[in-house]
């Protein structure tokens, strides 16, 4: 196991390095940040001061070298727009995004797995067909549009839930999150549901497919023949076996929930990392874009590792290479 983790870490560092090279050269090809940032009325002298201030007067190779040197010290550059360390900006907004992702994952799992199993067990029933048709809608409707419809219906028409922003922040066991207040929960519900919709649909389909396959396996038949209660057959024999593909998908999707929840965050003005990255791209805040993508790479590498380890716990047949 240790050897496996070590090897993965070395690989990650190489990935990180290649990624930094690609991203850094990529963002530096596009546009001119000074044109974006400066007041149009500023004169040429002011423009030159800003170019120098941002370090853009130096050749790109030198800029990259500085970036690498600083990155080793844990400094991923300073935002052109905010004048604060890019890492600080990202970390500041991380809790909002993580709580949104967790809550939407929670919504999608508590609905998707029971619904998927039901649709798998009784594929011919009307309810199952409705579930499956609904799931097609779920991942074919654009997030942006659904978000606006949610706001119009739940916030404007019914007036049940707030339309925008993050609610009050509470504290529980030293962790600060808007999940711990009623106001916070009312704010998070719509964006989380919006974000969950796509995932909900794909997990339903995945669960159904797994159920259909496993329900005909010999060990299920044997368990039933042995007289094991149906609830135990489903909750233990079936559930444990369909979880493997679901865990893979959830692992990867959780990463993408966090990294690319930009659309939902923009529609609901959710103060998370997704909104930060999209604003940074619009305004050519290069250091933030680079730092963000670096963090996301690390994040994905870590998630994949976690998924691999979870496998071994769920399925004893899977052995991580190098663990013996």
């Amino acid at each position, binding site marked *: 196991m240790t050897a496996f983790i070590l090897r993965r870490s070395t690989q990650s560092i190489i990935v990180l390095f290649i990624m930094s090279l690609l991203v850094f050269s990529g963002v530096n090809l*596009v*546009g001119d940040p000074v044109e974006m940032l400066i007041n149009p009325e500023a004169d040429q*002298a002011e423009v030159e001061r800003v170019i120098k201030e941002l370090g853009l007067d130096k050749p790109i190779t030198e800029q990259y070298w500085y970036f690498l040197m600083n990155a080793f010290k844990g400094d991923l550059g300073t935002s052109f727009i*905010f*004048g604060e360390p890019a890492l600080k*900006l990202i970390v500041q*907004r991380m809790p909002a995004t993580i709580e949104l992702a967790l809550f939407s994952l929670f919504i999608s799992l508590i609905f998707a797995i029971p619904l998927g199993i039901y649709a798998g067990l009784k594929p011919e029933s009307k309810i199952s067909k409705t579930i499956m048709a609904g799931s097609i809608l779920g991942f074919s409707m654009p997030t942006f549009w659904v978000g606006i419809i949610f706001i119009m219906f739940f916030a*404007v028409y019914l007036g049940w839930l707030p339309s925008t922003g993050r609610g009050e922040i509470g504290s529980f066991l030293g962790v600060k999150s808007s999940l711990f207040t009623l106001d916070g929960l009312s704010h998070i519900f719509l964006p989380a549901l919006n974000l969950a919709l796509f995932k909900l649909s794909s997990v339903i389909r995945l669960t159904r497919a797994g159920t259909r396959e496993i329900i005909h396996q010999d060990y299920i038949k044997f368990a039933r023949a042995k007289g094991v209660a149906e609830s135990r057959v489903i909750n233990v024999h079936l559930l444990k076996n369909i979880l493997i593909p679901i865990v893979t998908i959830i692992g990867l999707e959780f990463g993408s929930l966090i990294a690319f929840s930009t659309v939902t965050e923009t529609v609901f003005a959710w*103060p998370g990392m997704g909104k930060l990255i999209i604003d940074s791209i*619009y305004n050519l805040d290069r250091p933030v874009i680079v730092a963000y993508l670096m963090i996301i790479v690390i994040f994905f590498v870590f998630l994949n590792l976690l998924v691999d380890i979870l496998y071994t716990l769920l399925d004893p047949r899977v052995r991580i290479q190098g663990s013996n």
Partner: protein
Amino acid sequence: MNILNRILIIMIGCVLSSMAVAKDLTVGLKSEPSSIDPHYHNLGPNNSLSAHIFDTLVGSDENQQHYPNLAVTWKPINDTTWEFKLRKGVKWHDGSDFTADDVVFTSKRAANVPKSPSGFGTYLKGKTFVKIDSHTIHIKTEKPYPLMPNDLSTVKIISKKYGEGASTSDYNSGKAAIGTGPYKFVEWVPGDKIVLKANPNYHGALKGKPAFNKVLFKPIKTGPARIAALLAGDVDLIDSVPPLDVARLKKNASLTLTSGPSNRVIYIHLDQFRENSPYIKAIGGGEIKNPLMDVRIRKAISLAINRDAMVAKVMEGIALKAGQLLPAGFHGVSPNMKPDPYDTKAAKKLMADAGYGNGFEMTIHGPNDRYINDAKIVEALAQMLSRIGIKTKVETMPKSVYFKRASAGGPNKSPEFSFMLLGWGAGSGEASSPLRALLHTYDKSIGMGRANRGRHSDPAVDKIIQQALSTVNADARGKLLAEATEIAVGKNYGVIPIHYQMNTWAAKSSLSYQPRTDEYTLVMGISNN
């Protein structure tokens, strides 16, 4: 008993004073400021927010007319010195006194904020601030400098006590964000909210005492979400209502919409410095001499633009036809200039006279996320031009790519495009701002023509602009600026104005917003219906 009485009186006093300003307000903003530091980033959203917390010496009202703010009077006392008398009895938010020392300190800091992506150096260079007494300042320049009040209407005065050694982070955290303005800074959660509270000791130069007890600004970037937040009652006021929604929202009795012209003109810059322009070809694709060098072609293009249709159809009626660089009412605007009529016959004749009777091919460029409906305007222009025989192709792109190419995408960092859509907001609120930036000959050494992306050049215009910039008498200067505009725009067609952008604010029906030409959203501009 005596003590109890006093406590009772204080308590009643508190209740009464809180009743006077008991209301809270939530505002949904399209763009979030990047800092609370008033000198860090000289850009609309930042300047708008900091105007609540800090004051300038010279105030700038909703039409960008000056009013006494921290300075009560200002006048030139000789060719190179301006005297500013400061308001007495003004207190900082912490209770200390505002004096000339704060002004002198501000003049040193404002242009030198570390990491600032757009500072105030342009407005402060060449000026020496001298304290005469605790409430008098002399500002000396090398040459006569008439735009002193305009320049000083942009720079927020900060407290010396809190500003010394303070970084931008100290302002963002609130430690140094001590101003003299109508609202005090409470908290900024980036991406989420900015919280202000009333300053009961405000000197009242702008609309008297603050009308709201607590003000919450929420950044909501997308238009539909901003409108939904207003309809749901989560915010009380929003800015930048998209033109497409204005007609529908006006019918809603629970809202008040107000629109007003801005200081921003939407115009076309045309390549006037290359014999062969990269995006212009003869019909069929051969090389031709750049037709835009010929003033007759530029005039023909202006006549081919149906500005009425542009305003009515593309802008949904939320714009004003433009014939010069600023709408009527601003200083330096010519009373004689009207928007060109729509006259394709005359335009075709001009094309033929210039030797381009068969037309030519041209690719026209514009941004698609910078000005209101920018991409649609470019598409409409293309259709209008094809009616006089100019075969056009349209290319629009995000501003992050567009402006670099428009300014310096060509060889030797020259402007790349042949024909491009742009906008100019006159931050100074008078005509010298667009004239010196867009129509004066491009000259790095004197800081002129920085945004002259067509490289229009007429020595006669340059001379008048420079003369205006050293004429202290306001009326004489206004006449010179109008004259420069008449030649550069009216005669030379150095740029072709299309329309003045209008901005729309929407509030719940009990409130209404006084539109501002500088596009700022100021809580002080909200009144009760």
